[in-house]
């Protein structure tokens, strides 16, 4: 029998399939774990509606908990409140940067977002230069934008705040 605390601990080692340096708990998508009559209930919220990793994540969560000793695991999806990059834990932000992804800028909840020509000035995660430019609002996954450093000429990604 796995306790709720043990379950949380177990999920700290389940990586996000697309950004394997951070775990699903660090990403802030595991919202709730509860012991029910039908085994462990894990509530997960998707990052983006069409994120193809969502089903892989549910599968890895189930497998990790079963392996850790849970008798039965039910992964539920909850949409509201919608996931925000504010839920990424501080420690994970530094891991992202070390991995070459600039972590999302903090923003106050529900603050209006500038709609167009919003070009946050980013520091290159490789060489630290401020002389960078955005190539596209979208990157290798929906959650990231593509940038280029004009000093070291390397491309990098930015985890978009939502």
């Amino acid at each position: 029998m796995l306790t709720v605390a043990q379950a949380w601990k177990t999920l700290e080692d389940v990586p996000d399939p697309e950004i394997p340096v951070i775990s699903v708990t660090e990403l802030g998508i595991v919202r709730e774990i509860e012991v029910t009559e039908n085994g462990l209930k894990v509530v997960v919220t998707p990052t983006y509606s069409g994120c193809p990793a969502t089903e892989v994540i549910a599968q890895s969560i189930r497998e990790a908990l079963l392996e850790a000793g849970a008798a039965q695991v039910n992964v539920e999806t909850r949409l509201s409140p919608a996931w925000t990059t504010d839920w990424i834990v501080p420690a994970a932000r530094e891991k992202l940067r070390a991995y070459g992804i600039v972590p999302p800028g903090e923003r106050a909840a529900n603050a209006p977002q500038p709609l167009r020509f919003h070009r946050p000035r980013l520091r290159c995660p490789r060489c630290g230069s401020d002389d960078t430019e955005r190539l596209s609002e979208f990157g290798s996954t929906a959650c990231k934008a593509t940038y280029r450093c004009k000093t070291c000429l390397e491309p990098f990604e930015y985890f978009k705040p939502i």
Partner: protein
Amino acid sequence: MATNQEHTEYVLRIGDNALILGQRLSEWCGHAPVLEEDMALANMALDLIGQARMLLTRAGALEGEGRDEDRLAFLRTEGHYRNLTLCELPNHDFARTKVRNYLFSTFQVLLLSRLVGSTDAELAAIAGKSLKEARYHQQHSGDWVIRLGDGTEESHRRTQEALDYLWPYTAEFFAPAPGEDAIAAAGIGPAWHELEQSWEAQVHPLMVEATLTVPPRTPFKSYGKFGRHSEHMGHLLATMQYMQRTYPDTQW
């Protein structure tokens, strides 16, 4: 009170828009002019299909006849789709794709902003999720419309042609649909005409910035949201439904 059928149809309209435009945008995968745009278009297609899955699941639950997202997406016939005609039009070129995305995502942002306060809690949750994505679609496509419109002679020409071609179809966004007053009264979502003024107020200044001329309104009407589609819809469905029609109930 809105009837269950009116409620279902309302959600279906929103879900079908996302589904059909998502299908269209996915056609760009591997064909966009630059790699960054290839990824951007595929990402936006994914967002829309993700939104469509949630909305069609909701519509199926409201309908109560046991149809899930897959049955609704892949096993209806043309006349039962409720998407705006604009969403089903072929991509044509990059300019038309971007202008359409801008016109539609601006509408979508306004609609979703209203739906987050819906009395249908599930619809409100879906809208809250989708709105964050739609804002990026609007920002991205708006940037492109300006860049192309105020770009080279060739890009300006093509973008103006795209706007001239697409503009008449935008009248359908705001055309009244049966039951919308009941939907609005029940607090489920806005009647379509309620979004028109804000939409026009956003679109016109951007077109000025893009040095494009918005064509005058004409009596032209399209009726996709009532199930009367253009000649392009059947072709799109033939591609989209192929797997489910050939191998019924197939699973990945």
